[in-house]
C-alpha cells in the first residue's frame, strides 16, 4: 500500500525562538511548537487524536496539552525520528487508525532545561567496544569514516570545508539562522580542530528549540480553510544499520541512507531531475557529501566537487540545506524536525531564502551516527 498523495502536512511551525532559550524546558518547547502549528493551520485542537514525539514521550506531550490520544508513536531512533513519524502517521491516517496527527520536537540541547540524560551502559555494545577508547560524543564518532572516504575518493579538506561555506550563504539570507556571517574555505580551515579532520565550522551548532507538524488526510485537508497550501506526502522511507559506527559495513556510504531514500523515491514515482529542493541532515559537513551520493544525485566520489563548484548554493542547480542547516541555522540535537520544516516552507513558498517555484522537496534524515535514516518526498498539490 502506498500513501502517495493521500496525506498532507497542514500545520507546520517552530518555536518562537531558536538558539539559546534558558527559560523553557524541553517539554515546554514541544508544547509551544504544537500550539504554533495548531495556530498555523487553524485546526480545532480537540480534533488532534494522534501524537508522535521523540526525546519526550508522546504521552507527556498529549497530557501537557490536555488532549486524549487514539494513536501514539514514540519511535525514537535519533534525529530522523520525525521523518519516520511522518511516514508512520501517513500510514496510520490512511489505514483509519486516527484522523489528525501532531508530531512534536522540543529539545533544550544547549541549556539542558528539563532535558533527559543518557547514562552510558558499560555493558552495551558501545560501552564495551567503543567507550573504552575515549569517545566524546558525536564529534569523535560521526566523522570516523571521513579519512577513509578521502583516501578512497580524493575528497580534499577544501572541498569538505566548502559544505560549510555553501550553507552559510543560505543562512546569511535567513533572519532566524543562528550563524549568518559569510565564511570562506580559509575561515573554515582556520577554525579550531575538534576531531581531526573536522574543524569547528564543520560541526553542527548546539542550540535550544522545537518544531511541530500536523498531518491529516488529503480529503480532510481539502475541506479545511487553510491559510497556507497543504504539502503532500509523496514518498517515505526508513532504515537502520548499526548503533555503533565502528560496525558500519562501508565507511564511505550509509546503507540506511540508500535503503530509506530508494524506498521514498520509488513510492513517490520520481527521478532525481524532478527534485527542486533538497535537505540533507548535516550534523557534520561530510553528511551532505554522503547524502548526495547515497541518494543518487551524483556518482560515487563526485559530491565534494559538486558542492565546491557551487551547485548547492543559492542560484545553484540543486539548492540544498536552504535554511543554513545544522551547521548554521540551528541544531538542537535531533535536527530532523527542522529539515522537514524547511521543506514545508519551500513548498509553501514562505521560506526566507525561497527557491523559485519549488514543487518537489526531498528531506533526508539521519539518526545517531549513521545509525538510522528516514526519507520524505514532499510535494505541492500539482505534484499529487
Amino acid at each position, binding site marked *: 500500500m502506498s500513501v502517495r498523495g493521500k496525506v498532507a502536512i497542514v500545520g507546520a511551525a517552530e518555536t518562537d525562538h531558536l538558539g539559546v532559550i534558558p527559560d523553557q524546558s524541553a517539554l515546554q518547547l514541544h508544547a509551544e511548537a504544537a500550539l504554533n502549528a495548531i495556530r498555523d493551520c487553524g485546526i480545532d485542537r480537540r480534533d488532534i487524536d494522534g501524537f508522535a514525539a521523540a526525546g519526550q514521550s508522546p504521552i507527556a506531550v498529549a497530557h501537557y496539552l490536555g488532549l486524549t490520544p487514539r494513536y501514539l508513536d514514540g519511535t525514537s531512533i535519533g534525529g530522523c525520528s520525525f521523518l519516520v513519524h511522518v511516514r508512520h502517521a501517513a500510514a496510520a491516517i490512511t489505514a483509519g487508525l486516527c484522523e489528525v496527527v501532531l508530531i512534536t520536537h522540543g529539545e533544550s540541547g544547549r541549556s539542558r532545561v528539563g532535558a533527559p540524560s543518557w547514562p*552510558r*551502559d*558499560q*555493558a552495551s*555494545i558501545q*560501552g*564495551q*567496544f*567503543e*567507550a*573504552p*577508547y*575515549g*569517545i*566524546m*560524543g558525536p*564529534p*569523535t*564518532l560521526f*566523522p*570516523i*569514516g*571521513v*579519512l*577513509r572516504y578521502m*583516501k578512497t575518493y580524493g575528497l580534499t579538506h577544501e572541498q569538505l570545508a566548502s559544505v560549510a561555506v555553501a550553507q552559510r550563504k543560505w543562512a546569511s539570507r535567513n533572519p532566524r539562522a543562528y550563524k549568518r556571517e559569510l565564511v570562506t574555505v580559509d575561515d573554515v580551515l582556520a577554525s*579550531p*580542530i*575538534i*576531531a*581531526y*579532520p*573536522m574543524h569547528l565550522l564543520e560541526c553542527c551548532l548546539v542550540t535550544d528549540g522545537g518544531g511541530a507538524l500536523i498531518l491529516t488526510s488529503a480529503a480532510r485537508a481539502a475541506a479545511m480553510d487553510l491559510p497556507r497550501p497543504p504539502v503532500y506526502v509523496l514518498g517515505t522511507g526508513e532504515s537502520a544499520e548499526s548503533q*555503533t559506527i*565502528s*560496525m558500519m559495513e562501508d*565507511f564511505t556510504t550509509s546503507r540506511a541512507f540508500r535503503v530509506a531514500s530508494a524506498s521514498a523515491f520509488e513510492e513517490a514515482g520520481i527521478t532525481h531531475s524532478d527534485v527542486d529542493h533538497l535537505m540533507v541532515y548535516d550534523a557534520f559537513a561530510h553528511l551532505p557529501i554522503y547524502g548526495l551520493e547515497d541518494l543518487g544525485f551524483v556518482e560515487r566520489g563526485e559530491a565534494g566537487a559538486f558542492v565546491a563548484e557551487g551547485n548547492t548554493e543559492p542560484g545553484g542547480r540543486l539548492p540544498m540545506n536552504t535554511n543554513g542547516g545544522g551547521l548554521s541555522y540551528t541544531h538542537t540535537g535531533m535536527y530532523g524536525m527542522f529539515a522537514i520544516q524547511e521543506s514545508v516552507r519551500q513548498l509553501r513558498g514562505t521560506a526566507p531564502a525561497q527557491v523559485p517555484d519549488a514543487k518537489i522537496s526531498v528531506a533526508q534524515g539521519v539518526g545517531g551516527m549513521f545509525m538510522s535514516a528516514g526519507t520524505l518526498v514532499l510535494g505541492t498539490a500539482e505534484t499529487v
Partner: protein
Amino acid sequence: MADKPIPKPTPETQPYWDGARAGELRVQRCIACAEHYFYPRPFCPRCGSADVEWVAISGRARLHSYVISHRPAPGFEADAPYAIAVVALEEGPRLMTNIVGVDNTPEHLVLDMELEVTFQERGEQCLPVFRPAGARR
C-alpha cells in the same frame, strides 16, 4: 579526574575479554561461512547459523580510519589530542581501538599502515589496542 571507562562483559562477550586477559585477540568464526565476525554474538550475522566457534586470531591489522580528538573524554585529559581509530583485522572484521607507540598525528597515522595488537590494563579488564607492526614491545 574521572577514570577511563571500563568495559563490562556480558555472557556472549565474556570469551573476548577472557582472551584479552590472556593476551590473545579472540573473535568468533562461522563454521558454515568460514568467515570471522565481530562484535560477539552467539550466531553468525551473515547466515544465522549457531555453529560458530571462538578462535584466537593473528592480531595483525591495518589502519582503516580514525579521528584525532581534541576534546578528551573524562579520564583521557592527559592523552589529548589522541586518535580514536578503527582497524581492519587481517581476518576481516573491523574494530575500534587506540593506536599506541606512535605519535597520534596525521603525519604518523597513515591509512592502511600495518599494525599489531597489544593489551593495556583497564581496571579488571585488558583492552586490545594497536601499535605499528614490528615496533618494540
